[in-house]
């Protein structure tokens, strides 16, 4: 049984307002309802997503190794990476928060990079198996991706608050920038990926 798709019927979907539109043979078609540009598929989707994903994967290393925060007090100068921040929370007795930060900052970005790679690879291969699961995996990645920003916000508040010059001083480390870049790059990677490529007929 062959299923009718938008492509086979000559229909386009507007990515902004989700209107179904008859495809017109003009150079740059626009949605008659909201004026957004219409595409059969997002342009250069696989290449763009792959490029953003590689950048994110490379930056994941400094994001975890470089300190995200320096705490200077009169007694010592402490450098915290994401992981040591989790350990500090664990030792201070608030393990639910420690688990939360661990999942949001370490597990989620890693899973996101892996999941997007899997989805990207199967779209490129036009693999016919587990399509529904891959589609749902992609939508889950889109949904949870934003939660990785958690630690960036926590650090920004600590920086704003702990500025008692002579006593304690918190400075942002370069790890925080790498970390935020990973989050933003994976968010863009998910946005440039066209889910419909998971459903193309096998070559």
């Amino acid at each position, binding site marked *: 049984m062959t299923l*009718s798709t938008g492509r086979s019927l000559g229909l386009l979907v507007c990515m902004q307002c989700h209107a179904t539109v008859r495809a017109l043979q003009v150079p740059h078609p626009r949605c008659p309802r909201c004026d957004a540009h219409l595409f059969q598929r997002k342009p250069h989707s696989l290449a763009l997503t792959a490029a953003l994903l590689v950048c994110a994967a490379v930056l994941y290393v400094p994001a975890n190794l470089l300190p995200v925060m320096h705490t200077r007090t009169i007694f010592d100068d402490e450098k915290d990476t994401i992981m040591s921040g989790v350990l500090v929370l664990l030792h201070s007795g608030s393990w639910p928060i420690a688990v939360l*930060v661990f999942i949001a900052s370490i597990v989620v970005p890693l899973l996101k990079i892996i999941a997007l790679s899997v989805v990207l690879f199967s779209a490129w291969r036009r693999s016919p198996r587990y399509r529904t699961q891959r589609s749902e995996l992609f939508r889950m990645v889109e949904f949870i991706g934003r939660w990785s920003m958690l630690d960036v916000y926590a650090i920004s508040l600590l920086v704003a608050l702990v500025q008692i010059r002579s006593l304690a001083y918190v400075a942002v480390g370069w790890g925080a920038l790498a970390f935020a870049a990973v989050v933003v790059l994976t968010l863009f990677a998910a946005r440039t990926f066209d889910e419909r490529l998971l459903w193309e007929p096998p070559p």
Partner: protein
Amino acid sequence: MPVIVCPSCDLAHRAGPEPASERTRCARCLASLQRPENGSIDTAIALSIVALVLFLLSNAYPLVAIYSNGSTRAATLIGAALGLYRQDHTGLAALVFITTVVGPFLQIAALLYLLIPLRRKRRAPGQNTVFRLLAQVRPWTFVEVFMLGALVALVRLAAFTQVVPGIALWSCALLMLTLAALTSRTSPGQFWRWVERSRA
């Protein structure tokens, strides 16, 4: 017979003559296709006004304050971005500012701008441009993530000093809930249903 094409997998579906009475999903990829009518335009405008007030409160008052050795220090929402900017992390500051201040504000302002004329069966000038701006801004509003981040910062600080939650922390939590309710009631599908009804 009207046809709806799934934006997630390109499968064509036949749509009934009536608007869907319950949420429908794509037969192939299970993405949500149509959402039922969800509240009136008045509810959406009321929620937008509540969100605007909460947004202003969240920016006018401090989120948290710490006391140590007799001195007090408070941080506001903008202060969080400003602290990063002062330490020459302009990129990070911009990211925090856009996702916690600019994003929510643009979302609320755009909705009010679009919905108030629509209620009187009129269309706001540049309606389609503003709608597309709204669709672009929406994924970059991270108020709920910021709230959890603030909680993490509070827990870390509570180990060293006395921490006092400010008014903005509570208004921010309410803003988070209001924005969630608002977003679910002003989906693109719902918005264009209102537009089409205003034409009739």
